[in-house]
């Protein structure tokens, strides 16, 4: 079986881990780690902080794996719900701290060349223009979630999700038009 555990559902992998199958979790982790990390990173714009929060998210998954109820949510939705909560918590804490806009991306050099660093910086700058609710909605859509799933994660109605996406794209469109 591949490292990603193809053919085995997320819920099945979680159940396997609960029974003590470490490899099940390993597959689940490799399946979602990059998507989750990018969501956290794009939400916050700081690599080191994103790593820290991503680790907290996964540890929370370990803590709560036994309580996961597949009838109420998909594993991926559940995972991103945890991530979203962590991001919001961090953002609330950060509001009360002195925050420097000059924070660099702090992305390890081996990951991106200069050009792609600039692209990424541009994206993050665009994200910063968005209200938090629009930003998280837009980022979740970028990670492939449907409107219905975004509703589950964010706890708002479908129309609200659509509205947030509409406003977010409108804002970004203006920004792209100015910058391109």
């Amino acid at each position, binding site marked *: 079986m591949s490292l990603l555990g193809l053919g085995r559902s997320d819920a099945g992998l979680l159940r396997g881990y609960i*029974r003590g199958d470490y490899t099940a979790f390993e597959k689940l982790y490799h399946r979602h780690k990059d998507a989750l990390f990018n969501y956290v990173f794009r939400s916050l714009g700081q690599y080191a902080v994103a790593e820290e929060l991503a680790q907290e998210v996964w540890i929370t998954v*370990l803590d709560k794996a036994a309580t996961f109820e597949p009838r109420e949510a998909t594993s991926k939705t559940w995972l991103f719900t945890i991530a979203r909560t962590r991001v919001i918590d961090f953002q609330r804490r950060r509001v009360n701290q002195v925050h420097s806009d000059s924070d660099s991306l702090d992305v390890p050099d081996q990951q991106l060349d200069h050009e792609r660093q600039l692209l990424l910086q541009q994206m993050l700058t665009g994200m910063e223009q968005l209200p938090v609710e629009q930003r998280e909605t837009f980022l979740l859509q970028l990670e492939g979630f449907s409107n219905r799933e975004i509703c589950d994660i964010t706890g708002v109605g479908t129309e609200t999700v659509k509205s947030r996406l509409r406003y977010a794209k409108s804002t970004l469109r203006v920004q*792209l038009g100015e910058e*391109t």
Partner: protein
Amino acid sequence: MTQPDSSYRNAPRLRSSETLDRAVLGEAKRRAERQPGNRNRLYFAPALATVAVCVVGVTMVLKNEFPSVTAIDSAGVTEDVSRAESVQQEFTSALASQDAAGFGLDADAAAPPVVLVEPPVMRREVMRQKSNVVQNSAPAPRLEAMADSLSAADAAPAFKDVASISATVSERESASATLLIAEQPLHQFTVLIRHSNAQQFSDMTIPTAIVRLRTGGQANALVIGSFMSRQQADKAISQLRLAEQQPRVLTFGALKKLLR
């Protein structure tokens, strides 16, 4: 006009670092190892169904066939008239090897892995065997048949040794029967047989169980011992794995040393 979502979708994606991977997966592994059912799954689940079938089959067969076995008492003295000398010689040398190697792990053993033994067999069963031997001086046909069947099955020589050594006698007379099977690297299986339920296994002999497992294609390496708890058995398995040695002869006494 550029679509913002497509533009952003094409934006560089980052990978989480290896440090993060190690931290998360390391923690997950530690927790998984603490899961109550973990050892059961790793050690027993893959072979449990097969073993259950084997046990039932062996028990049924033994109730109707093979009334006689070679018996060696706890002092290592054979009572079997058919292969007394060879069995005793083998057993004695095996014990000597075990003593020399400490714990019975013979690093120089060239023979295929296996063995040993001191399974608690019901004393009354052994006495019945002895009685049979006394009453019937003819060579035990069952033992020969077992050896032949092993040859026919292209069994490893070590398993012939097991067949010839046959049953040994324990001081213990009771407790339950539990077959513990652990998957070994390279598809070898360590079989730990715990006899503590005499009722269930009173007609079963350990070597025959081995033979049956072997002919069932299940075992390449066997360790037989008697354990009072699965924790002890697990510990013994771990010790053997750590030693990365394939035990040629391992007595119950040696197993007990391992568990200290």
